[in-house]
């Protein structure tokens, strides 16, 4: 068995049956990481204790102890998630030397399931970006073609799995940050329902939208990893008490009786023709698998983006107020010029510690929340957010799942959009509304663009109906049997 080509659930099964040791698995992925990370830059920090941690999994198996469904599976963890004793930077100079004294609930649950963190994945700074070009630690290259971005903000997570440096990555998604890089790198990526997965120990960007989720080679792995990380958490009062179903065991590619909604606002000239072709093909596959197609309307799609950027920048400006250079994180050098007052102390720490995009978003939020503008911007955006959520609830009265594109294009070139922030924001049109409404969304590979780059299909379902969404993805995956891998990764 070629371990690097294997899905995570197969690896775990082999490890449990002692056909291969967790240490051997980790060594293989570490070797692949040594070979490719210098070029792709998927990891900010490689876990130098990964082999020892894998040995502990082997020791448990040798003693006949229960090891969990992800035994010996290496995981690339986005650098937004705190890992006890392992540097966690959020790809920011602000946290360049931060070593968390505790682990995020997601990380703890993965470890309890037998998984081992192989490294901390690169990303856009504080998850603010769609191309992974805002990282303080340098951009990430798309393993399919190094001239192109891997997407963002979970670009390092996506590149790590696409280049087989890990069989599973954990990303976070505030407005598409799991789905869009999964689309750009040919992966399955799931943003769960808001409240499914604990946010404890995850660097906060926009707390009412942030969710962590898996990025994998296939639907079954994504379902299995999601089962591990989901569920109520004592440290996050927004997690749901809803039971966590065994999604991976209930996958069903027969879509008979299912209604799939196609929002008429999604299928416009904005989508590049080759991407449209891939999406249309996937819709036909769902139909052939038994689903009934119905036209639906999401009339507020267009204002989703401005509403999203208002809500998230307001939340971010508040969340990022904690970085003041007092208790942890970056502190400016005051040895030559003492601070004039406490505001100057904070301002210099923050002015030097945050990158351009993060400062831009903090200022957008600060302005929108400032006296005289709060009602016109923040409150108004929250009102439209409710209307947007109601549109989805109405749509799900008519259908079980929604299909559409993840992004208007495949991956774009490095440097192509980074100097025009507004243009970059407007591209998030298909992904942000799921976060505003709190519904689950995922990307599943659907085919390739004219340049040979992967193109993902987005599937959404109603709150806590992940199974329906995963089943549609499973049907598409089964019908397409895509086997292509990036050139030159072996």
């Amino acid at each position, binding site marked *: 068995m070629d371990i690097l080509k294997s899905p995570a659930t197969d690896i775990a099964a082999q490890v449990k049956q002692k056909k291969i040791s967790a240490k051997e698995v980790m060594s293989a992925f570490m070797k692949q990481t040594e070979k490719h990370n210098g070029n792709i830059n998927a990891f900010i920090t490689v876990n130098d204790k990964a082999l020892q941690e894998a040995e502990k999994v082997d020791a448990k198996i040798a003693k006949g102890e229960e090891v969990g469904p992800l035994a010996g599976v290496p995981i690339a963890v986005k650098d937004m998630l705190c890992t006890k004793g392992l540097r966690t930077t959020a790809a920011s100079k602000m946290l360049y030397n931060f070593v968390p004294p505790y682990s995020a609930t997601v990380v703890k649950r993965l470890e309890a399931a037998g998984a081992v963190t192989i490294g901390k994945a690169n990303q856009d700074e504080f998850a603010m970006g769609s191309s992974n070009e805002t990282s303080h630690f340098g951009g990430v290259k798309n393993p399919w073609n190094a001239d192109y971005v891997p997407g963002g903000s979970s670009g390092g997570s996506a590149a790590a799995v696409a280049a087989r440096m890990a069989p599973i990555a954990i990303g976070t998604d505030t407005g598409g940050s799991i789905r869009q890089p999964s689309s750009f790198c040919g992966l399955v990526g799931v943003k769960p329902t808001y409240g499914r997965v604990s946010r404890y120990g995850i660097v906060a960007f926009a707390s009412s939208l942030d969710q962590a989720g898996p990025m994998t080679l296939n639907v079954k792995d994504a379902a299995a990893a999601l089962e591990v990380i989901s569920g*109520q958490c004592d440290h996050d009062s927004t997690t749901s008490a809803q039971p966590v179903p065994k999604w991976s065991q209930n996958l069903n590619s027969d879509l008979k009786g299912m209604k799939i909604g196609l929002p008429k606002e999604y299928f416009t000239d904005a989508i590049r023709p080759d991407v449209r072709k891939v999406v249309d093909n996937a819709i036909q596959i769902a139909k052939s698998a038994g689903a009934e197609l119905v036209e639906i309307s999401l009339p507020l799609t267009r204002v989703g983006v401005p509403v999203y950027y208002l809500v998230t920048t307001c939340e971010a400006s508040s969340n990022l107020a904690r970085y003041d250079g007092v208790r942890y994180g970056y502190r400016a050098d005051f040895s030559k010029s003492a601070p004039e007052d406490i505001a100057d102390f904070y301002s210099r720490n923050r002015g030097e510690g945050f990158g351009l995009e993060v400062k831009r978003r903090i200022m957008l939020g600060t302005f929108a929340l400032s006296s005289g503008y709060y009602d016109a911007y923040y409150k108004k955006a929250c009102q439209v957010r409710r209307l947007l959520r109601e549109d989805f609830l109405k749509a799900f009265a008519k259908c079980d799942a929604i299909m559409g594109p993840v992004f208007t294009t495949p991956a774009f070139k490095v440097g192509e959009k980074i100097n025009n922030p507004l243009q970059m924001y407007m591209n998030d049109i298909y992904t942000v509304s799921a976060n505003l409404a709190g519904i689950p969304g995922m990307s599943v590979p659907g085919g390739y663009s004219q340049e040979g780059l992967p193109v993902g299909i987005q599937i959404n379902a109603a709150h806590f109906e992940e199974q329906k969404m995963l089943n549609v993805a499973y049907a598409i995956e089964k019908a397409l049997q895509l086997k292509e891998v990036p050139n030159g990764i072996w």
Partner: protein
Amino acid sequence: MDIMIDVKKVADLARLHMQPDEESKYQAQLSAIFKYFEEVALIDTNGIEPLTTPTEIEQVWRADEKVTELTTEDALSNAPAKSGQLFRVPPVV
């Protein structure tokens, strides 16, 4: 409506020290972005309650018992400067 954003004032409110060249760059970008946000104002939201969290969440209670999550050493472990059990900062008054 054309929005004039006083970047210097906003940066002060956000406690962000700005270089002069950054200020002029942000000035143009922030104004363009807010112009685009104006689209939101066109939606009729009369009588609509703002939505601040997307799922129904019930209040969760735990027993009112003391728990130790982090030790003092843990809490101080990432301090840029410390003195004994205290965070140390340069004089600011």
